[in-house]
């Protein structure tokens, strides 16, 4: 199995604050992976490290077995759409296609033009005058025309309305399905990810909380309802991710590795429930002291 993107103990620090810490995971080639986490979790930092914009302060990140930082040899194989899809706003879409082509060796300009024609993007209008959805489509078309082996998208749909969001994701899925491109797509909109992703990386507070194929993740977690639980081990449960209690009853979201003790009622979980359980983890208590309120 070829690994498209691999991080090992990866860390990045801004001043004294770690934006990303101890980040280790592998993304197999051909996957469409969601990168999930709340704002400030380190999603953009991870993507910037993967595309070589940032230099790691700890550990390594490898793209098809090469370190991307300051290594232009990796760049032709990586398509990147940064947050808010920055483009030269006074350029027209046609100019962007022509000029970006001059900066890339594996360029497929016809592909970009076809896509943009299909989406009805006006070629002679400055992209600053396009709608947010159209501009995102232009940025995606430019990234796809590089014929990348790895496509990194930083919150590509965050600023789009639901209809444009759906169209964007559909057209993305259509193109990468043909080419077999590996995709890592960050978002905090869980519903979108559930629709398109078959792999998941969950970040929270600068750390990786969960990685894996979506079906394994869904299959590996269960919701258990049973008597008040006080932390004792349960048969068939590898770890309790999140627990909520009433006086007599506990509801657990747990990682399971076998048949669960029949004392518990077992329910299937959705991907969203799993993600939310892991996002609740590791919330910092330091802010209580900073605000001088009791924790």
């Amino acid at each position, binding site marked *: 199995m070829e690994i498209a993107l691999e991080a090992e103990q990866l860390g990045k620090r801004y001043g004294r604050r770690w934006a990303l810490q101890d980040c280790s995971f592998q993304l197999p080639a051909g996957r469409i992976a969601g990168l999930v986490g709340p704002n400030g979790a380190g999603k953009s930092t991870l993507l910037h490290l993967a595309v070589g914009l940032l230099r790691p302060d700890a550990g390594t990140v490898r793209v098809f077995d090469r370190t991307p930082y300051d290594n232009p040899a990796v760049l*032709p194989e990586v398509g990147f759409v940064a947050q808010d899809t920055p483009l030269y706003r006074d350029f027209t879409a046609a100019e962007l296609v022509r000029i970006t082509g001059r900066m890339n060796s594996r360029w497929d300009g016809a592909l970009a033009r076809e896509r943009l024609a299909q989406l009805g993007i006006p070629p002679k209008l400055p992209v600053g005058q396009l709608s947010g959805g159209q501009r995102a489509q232009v940025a995606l078309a430019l990234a796809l025309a590089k014929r990348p082996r790895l496509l990194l998208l930083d919150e590509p749909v965050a600023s789009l309305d639901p209809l444009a969001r759906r169209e964007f994701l559909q057209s993305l899925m259509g193109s990468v399905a043909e080419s077999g491109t590996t995709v890592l797509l960050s978002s905090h909109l869980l519903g979108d990810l559930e629709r398109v992703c078959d792999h998941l990386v969950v970040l929270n507070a600068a750390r990786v909380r969960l990685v894996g194929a979506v079906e394994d993740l869904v299959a590996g977690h269960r919701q258990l309802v049973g008597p008040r639980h006080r932390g004792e081990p349960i048969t068939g449960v590898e770890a309790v991710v999140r627990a909520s209690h009433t006086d007599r009853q506990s509801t657990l979201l747990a990682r399971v590795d076998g048949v669960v003790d029949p004392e518990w009622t077992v329910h299937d979980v959705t991907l969203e429930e799993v993600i939310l359980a892991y996002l609740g983890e590791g919330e910092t208590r330091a802010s209580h002291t900073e605000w001088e309120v009791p924790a």
Partner: protein
Amino acid sequence: MIALAWRQHRRQMLFTLIGFAVLAALMIPIGISMRHTFTDLGLPECVRALSRSDVAPATADTCEGAFHQFTNRYGNLNLVAVLLLVLPMLVGLFWGAPLVAREVEQGTHRFAWTQGIGRRHWAMVKFGLVVAVTTLAAVCYGLGMSWWVSPLTQAAREGRLGFVVFDLQGVAPIGYTLFAVALGIFAGTLGRRMLPAMTITLVGYIGVRAAVEVLARPHYQPARTAEFPVAGDGRVPMNRGDWILSSGVRNPDGKMVAPDAQIVCPPDVQGPGGRPCGAELGVQPGAYNWQLYQPGDRFWLFQGIETGIFIALAAVLLYLALRRIRRLA
């Protein structure tokens, strides 16, 4: 990559060209009329005559008069010359500072630097293009100003080495312009915004230029001294166009009695009350006028040194900017 740089900067280039054209359209007619007057007053002959040591006093007087006439008529243009001093700085502000800062401010660096060519190549092409354009503009500016300002400098006593006029002509503007642009580019890599970068460029340019001009330039070569007696015919053993750094009257023992002054008395003239000339200032018999100066024929040497300093600074700043760009994301 050149296609990107050209497309990004072509409008800016057009505006710069228009600016230059307007400036030329204003300055060239003034320059031509100034030169006509200069010739009509017979000043070219005067410049030649005064550069010889055996000039007849009558000729010298006539020429001084003519120079005076010329200066009265065109002296105000020295003010225009001062205004033109800011041109290299404007190039630094509007071509240098936005080069990286604007990309970072608008986030487009994340687009440009993740294309196949990489950011080092990007920076090289952009820097190269801007340096080439500004050098060309600076050469035109330096040559044009040399031509334009030469009647004014020839008519002025201190000549081409004097403040302001030295900075306007020859090759020095190339050094200043490249320095301003490099400073702008470097300042643009420090923060994430364009306006602070422009402020740093403005302050830094004025600061460094003033420091070099005041502190370093008078010392590029050991200055010479000229001495002539207080009681005498007032013939100064110096040439027109020498750059006087400091002057004063010294007593025979070398003590400075009247700084920043020059006293000349015909040999048999006495001061008020029958005292010797200048006695009220403490001038003793045998006192002499003293001047520290840089000879005017060192103009090109000084131009070369000054240009070299600023080009070296520009090179260092561009190198630092390249290093900074590697750390931006």
